[in-house]
């Protein structure tokens, strides 16, 4: 009995700290105006520790995944945001997503300001994350990393503004599939064995119009007074299901149809486990089965929405969500929208057009546009024009970092004021560089990718936003901290670009051309030689006897023989 005592004491000492770790899970289902279904999962793990303080060593993990915790402490990461998306979020059809992400992979990290070798840490970190998420993040190097000066501010605690500790990179070519989903699911405390994660069957998740999964880690306050800090890990997964393709034209859905699974229980480790169904747009024609007495309201992205709430921690909830019909209404245009394309033809020059729409009827607001363009598109920054309503719109802030060939990409950040109800066009011309032959990808004729540009803005809100910090807010409305009542923060990603560079024909005809050119060059050389050289008739050289005779005659001083 005595021998067990220290253990009991030890457990007793540990429990209060560990009890403050917390796990919440949430699923939001939102029928979209295009007839598609948007399902957004969010899992939040709170870790009550502050290992960045000097001398504190962390070796105990309860809910927080150890693999990520070790990464955080080893590389002195202050904030980490990583997203993998397959597909493009169609803002004009679907509205704003809860958490936006560009096609491909995106990674941005704020390092702690004690880090001396940020680039070294960044390189190691990308390689480690590459292993954790089974993704090609190891392709991130200095040629596609930028340090945005204004677009990416920390979302968590702390007001770091020195962008030397920020690194941002995208891999627009990254293809996201099951092998990225599995390690992502393993980070959850219940894995995919219980709770909402049961629904994540990759066969169905990848049979969709859009798939995006993300991990966000940041330090936050535990309470309103911010007396204690905690690490927050948010894992989000957004899927848009195309009912047109899968539903044979019927606008009906159920959890089973979407995920080919039903919910059976909440994750036992979760302090809250909820399913929200957005019923704002169709209050009458709604037939949810089973019906729920709980209705909730949340202000998200400048709009007040009504939700039916199912609390999975209550036993009576279980059953299936079945068959309910939707009423389609005219779409409320998203207030901010951006797209991008390459103009022009031919393989020498081109022009990148970024079009930003402000659909607000009477409010102008500023946006931050960030463009990171690889070095092989040589931007002519003097051709940069910003026009709104066919008038020149001078950006109030421009941060431009020119590229260095083979070392770093172009970075262009601008603060542009968008007039109300307007279309703003940003154009810049570029020249396509001729790469060295070893620098071409294995499929050079596919083209080269240019990552999405990022538009960040504080968009005027239609309804008052809640600024007070409460714990019982749904997760989907609490990701970005709201600082003022009248506006909300939105980030919009444009589509990536696929640009063709001048490409030699790496095949037999290429060799033939090289060979022919050589032959032509040799032939031309001799012809040119013949045409330009002046020829003189050369006397045949005198025989040896004559030369000898002449030598003797020269010595004797008599006239020479001819």
């Amino acid at each position, binding site marked *: 009995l005595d021998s067990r005592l220290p253990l009991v004491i030890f457990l007793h000492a540990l429990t209060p700290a560990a009890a403050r770790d917390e796990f919440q899970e949430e699923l939001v289902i939102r029928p979209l105006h295009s*007839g598609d279904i948007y399902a957004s999962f969010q899992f939040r793990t709170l870790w009550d520790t502050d290992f960045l303080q000097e001398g504190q060593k962390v070796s105990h993990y309860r809910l927080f995944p150890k693999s990520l915790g070790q990464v955080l402490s080893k590389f002195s990461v202050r904030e980490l945001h990583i997203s993998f998306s*397959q*597909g*493009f979020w*169609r803002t004009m*059809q679907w509205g704003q997503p809860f958490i936006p992400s560009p*096609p*491909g992979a995106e990674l941005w990290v704020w390092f702690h300001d004690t880090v001396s070798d940020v680039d070294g840490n960044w390189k190691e970190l990308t390689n480690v994350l590459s292993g954790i998420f089974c993704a090609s993040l190891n392709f991130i190097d200095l040629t596609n990393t930028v340090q945005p000066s204004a677009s990416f501010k920390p979302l968590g605690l702390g007001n770091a503004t020195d962008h030397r500790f920020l690194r941002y990179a995208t891999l*627009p070519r990254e293809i996201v599939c099951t092998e990225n989903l599995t390690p992502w699911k393993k980070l959850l405390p219940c894995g995919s064995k219980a709770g909402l994660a049961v629904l994540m069957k990759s066969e169905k998740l*990848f*049979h*969709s*119009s*859009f*798939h995006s999964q993300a991990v966000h880690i940041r330090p936050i306050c535990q309470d309103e007074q911010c007396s204690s800090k905690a690490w927050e890990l948010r894992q989000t997964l957004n899927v848009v299901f*195309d009912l*047109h*393709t899968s539903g*044979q034209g019927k606008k009906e859905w159920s959890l089973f149809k979407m995920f080919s699974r039903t919910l059976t229980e909440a994750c036992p480790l979760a302090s809250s486990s909820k399913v929200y169904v957005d019923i704002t747009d169709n209050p009458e024609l709604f037939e949810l089965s089973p019906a729920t007495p709980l209705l909730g309201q949340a202000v998200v992205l400048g709009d007040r929405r009504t939700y039916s709430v199912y609390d999975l921690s209550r036993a009576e909830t279980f059953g299936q969500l079945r068959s309910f019909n939707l009423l389609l209404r005219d779409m409320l245009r998203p207030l901010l929208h951006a*797209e991008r*394309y*390459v*103009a*022009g*033809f*031919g*393989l020498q020059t081109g*022009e990148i*057009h970024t079009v930003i729409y402000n659909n607000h009827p009477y409010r102008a607001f500023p946006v931050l546009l960030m463009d990171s363009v690889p070095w092989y598109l040589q931007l002519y920054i003097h051709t940069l024009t910003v026009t709104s309503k066919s008038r020149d719109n001078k950006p109030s802030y421009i941060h431009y970092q020119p590229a260095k060939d083979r070392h770093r990409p172009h970075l262009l950040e601008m603060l542009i004021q968008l007039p109300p109800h307007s279309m703003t066009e940003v154009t810049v011309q570029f020249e396509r560089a001729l790469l060295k032959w070893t620098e071409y990808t294995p*499929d*050079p*004729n*596919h*083209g080269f*990718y240019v990552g999405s540009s990022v538009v960040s803005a504080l968009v005027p809100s239609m309804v008052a936003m809640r600024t007070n910090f409460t714990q019982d807010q749904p997760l989907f409305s609490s990701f970005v901290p709201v600082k003022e009542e009248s506006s909300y923060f939105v980030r919009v990603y444009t*589509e*990536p*670009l*696929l*640009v*063709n560079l001048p490409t030699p*024909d790496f*095949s037999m005809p290429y060799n*033939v051309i090289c060979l022919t050119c050589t032959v032509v060059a*040799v*032939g031309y*050389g*001799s*012809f040119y*030689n*013949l045409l330009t050289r002046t*020829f003189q008739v*050369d006397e045949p050289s005198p025989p040896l006897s004559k030369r000898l005779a002449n030598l003797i005659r020269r010595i004797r001083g008599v006239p020479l023989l001819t």
Partner: protein
Amino acid sequence: MGLLSDPNRRKALTGLLTRLNTPICIVCYLAGIVWFMGLAFEPFTLRTYMSENAMGSTMVEERFSSGERALSLAKEFDAHKRQARGMPVEWLVKAMQSRGLEVFTQSFSRKLPFPDENKERYMVRGTNVYGILRAPRAPRTEALVITAPCSPGNTNNQAVALLLALAQYFRNQIYWAKDIIFLVNEHDLIGTQAWLEGYHHTNITGMEYSPLQGRAGSIQAALSLELSSDVITSLDLVLEGLNGQLPNLDLANLFYAFCQKLGVLCTIQGKLQRNDWDTAEGYTHAAQTMMLMVLKQACGRSWGDHGLFLRYHIEAASVRGINSFRHYKTDATTIGRLLEGMVRKLNNLLERLHQSYFFYLLPSLSRFVSIGYYMPAFGLLAVILLLRVSFPGLCHCFSVSLQPSSPGVLTVLTPVVISHLTGVALYLLPVHLQEMAVEHFPVSETEAVVLTAIAIYTAGLALPHNTQRLLSGEGTEQGWKVLKLTALLYLAVLLGCTALINFSLGFILAVTLVPITASITPHMPKALYAVVMVLLSPAFTILYCVFIYQELIEAPVSVSEGWMLFLSVISQGILDHALYGSLVYPLLALFIYPCWLMFWNILFWN
């Protein structure tokens, strides 16, 4: 090259070339023609094969089955088209939206430089409607285009309907990796041009259009569909595009492969393939098919909506349904399946089509002549010009012309400048003087333009040698030699460059221009040679091409009809240049014609 550096052997070689210059030139010319005609002979050609791995080995199963629905849609479309007296934009937008596409419209307007009498249009105003099928989980970086023109009258209803039916079917499939754009364009090529310029945000032809609202990244390939009957007997593939550009041969191979698979009769230049290559008829058939391709390519116009895509590095072809009196008929479902198969294979592409040939001639759909085989035919003709440069009389004046102080420079420069000024007049005046011409003569604008062009062309024959005589007095013996040397080198460079870009045009010009230019001197019987020169001038070349073309498509014309066709070809050439940026008219007016005038000058050298 020791052979050439050695003075003795070199002397022997130049001696041989000088002595046998004329026979060698004649042999080269004949060899060039024979080589060219031999290209159509089957044993000398290669069998086509699919080079692109992504399209070759993958299996595709065609399941499109709503051909009947497409035909009823065609009737509905026809009714709406009649009601709207043009393109039923609203109906099309609704039809595409209900099929789950993102639909956008683009309006455009274009004032032609002068009325187009063939298509009866002057002030063109229209709308393009296009719907984008967004591929699931694709980042909007790549797209394929299927287009069908909304033509006036009863034509192409089935094409538009089949396009809609395909859109509906495609929308329910999950395997798309590239966005698919379904485009219905009004006013055929003008609509396509407006859409392409809008998509790429360029303006090269002065078109007015509204900017596009929806895009889908870089377009990888495009198919244009023309279909005017419920059933067809054969499908014709049209490849010739603007300025003689051709799509990658793999696109033709793809079409041929699916025609074989689905048992659809396929033709090129409207001619079926024959298997009896060893008979005279078989060879003639292949030669005719190839000649048709050469003529079509040489005229540098776009022979279908696809032709304008090629400028933007988008591989494109037109598929045209033909309904003749054969018994064997193909229904809309099969055509839909054929297109489905082609689009699915294009969807599988990992890179742009680039593996196969971009320069080729097709004597039939299953045989092709690559650039390596046809270029010698042109080379044999072009080498004549270079051989004539080394002609004894000409060789010596080369050193003279290098000295700037010699009178040779001015004697050469005057006719060169005057010829080119005539060329500039031929290029600019017809369109700009049309109003004046219409005021003074009882002709329509189109006739005015063409007749002005012919008038300037004829006036040019009188102008250069007379003015030259006024300016610099009597021409010397050395003067014409320097001029001929310059003109020969100029023509060689011109034809060489043209043939690299558009082999057919270069070859046809070489065939007519080389013999007379190589042999011309002022000491020949002037009247006889003047007639021969005029008969071999660029304008008459066009006239011959018109007659040969009519003969080849088995619609021979009388002389007066031929003349009318000739006039319309000239007006079409000028229009193509103004509307789509075809370069054949400026090439002929600004370079080939002045060059020919320089030789004309030599003939009348005094």
